[in-house]
């Protein structure tokens, strides 16, 4: 059973096709780097996979069932553009809140563990409002990975991170890889993403221009893909 099956997905905004006949499969344990220019449709596709938006035609199946299935949603972790934590609550309260929403048996313990892993254990009781930007980003990572998701959807996760946050994120992703979790990552930071990826997909103007295994050539020359399959 594939982790993710994108089954001829189209997305229309009015009559304008933002995604055209996207079809691919991601097996468990793989790490997919989703590349493409701004406006190509990466975020649209990730949002459909995360269950935040409906495909106009076609379906996305996660672990064999529909992506909006609530059993599935407990298995997905989403890291989007916003940090998705509440400013008025403390870091600990935020993580415990999401732990309870995801039905974790020990929300407090999971919160403690992830605060340590992201280096926020000493700031756990402070309100998020008082956090620096780097701390907020690390907390976002903690929130996304908190409930041990089998599938992680990361939308441009490396963008605008400070170096400490980048290090934390890379460590968390490597740990996830070791634990055989599936990751789909859209990105502009080609080098970091291509180092971690096992497969690569390129979206160009809503169409899937390329899907295949990551090669050494891609890592050495990240722009190779765009030259061959994208636009200049």
């Amino acid at each position, binding site marked *: 059973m594939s982790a993710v099956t994108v089954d001829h997905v189209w997305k229309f905004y009015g009559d304008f096709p933002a995604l055209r006949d996207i079809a691919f499969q991601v097996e468990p344990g793989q790490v997919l780097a989703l590349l493409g220019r701004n406006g190509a449709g990466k975020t649209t596709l990730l949002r459909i996979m*995360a*269950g*935040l*938006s*409906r495909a106009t035609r076609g379906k996305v199946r996660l672990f064999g069932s529909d992506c*909006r299935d*609530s*059993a599935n*949603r*407990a298995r*997905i972790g*989403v890291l*989007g*553009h*916003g*940090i*998705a*934590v*509440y*400013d*008025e*609550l403390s870091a600990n*309260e935020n993580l415990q*809140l*999401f732990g*309870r*929403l*995801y*039905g974790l048996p020990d929300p407090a313990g999971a919160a403690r563990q992830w605060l340590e892993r992201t280096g926020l254990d000493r700031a756990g009781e402070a309100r998020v409002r008082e956090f620096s930007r780097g701390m907020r980003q690390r907390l976002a990572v903690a*929130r996304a990975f908190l409930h041990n998701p089998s599938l992680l959807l990361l939308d441009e996760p490396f963008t605008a991170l400070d170096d400490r946050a980048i290090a934390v994120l890379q460590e968390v992703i490597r740990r996830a890889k070791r634990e055989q979790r599936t990751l789909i990552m859209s990105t502009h930071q080609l080098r970091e993403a291509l180092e971690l990826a096992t497969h690569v997909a390129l979206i160009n103007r809503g169409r899937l221009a390329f899907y295949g295994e990551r090669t050494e050539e891609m890592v050495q020359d990240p722009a190779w893909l765009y030259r061959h399959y994208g636009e200049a």
Partner: protein
Amino acid sequence: MRFLRQTFVICQKDLRAELRSKEALNASLAFSVVILLLFSFAFDPTAEQTREISGGLLWLVFAFAGALILNRSFARELANDCLDALVASPVPGSALFLGKAIANFVLLLAIEFICLPVFGVFYNVRWTTHLGALTLILVLGTWGLTVIGTMFSALTVNLRLRELMLPVLCYPIMIPCLLPAIQLSTVVIAGQPLGPDMMEGLRLLVGFDVIFTVLALALVETVLIG
């Protein structure tokens, strides 16, 4: 069971966030008290006049003050993109809606019970005669306002002109809830118990609450996701 638990978690989160910042709560409370006072010395109503307008005055104040709270309901999720995280979680849209609606209901009801003594003092009205009946009317009427306001808050969450659109959309639909609430409150505050001819009004309130709660629970996920 899980549905109720998730509803409770959302409700608790909203209440905690609001009680910490108190932004909407303070604005709403200040607004209601000021309006009550303004009307009192602008119109300087006699005891007889007050008896006639008590329900209308109170419910208009509650509706306007309520808009401040109801607007925040889904709008508070926009900062930091929290709404995406909630929708992507296993919490169904209906639990999200219900949790928020209950939190709003509690806040609005608290404001109303603070307004009542203020009203009693400045208008010289004894409102405690039929407290049980009055509480019932407040509960039914406030739930109606809350359901509509919370639902429309979800509907308008992504709009630029949200602050303007929400009242424009809400108030006409709230009228069939406000009219019976106003009429029943006026009767009860004037000291008369609810007679048989008032039962129709109660039935209207209950009908309103049931219809729109069911509709909201059914449609909120469509609004949030698509």
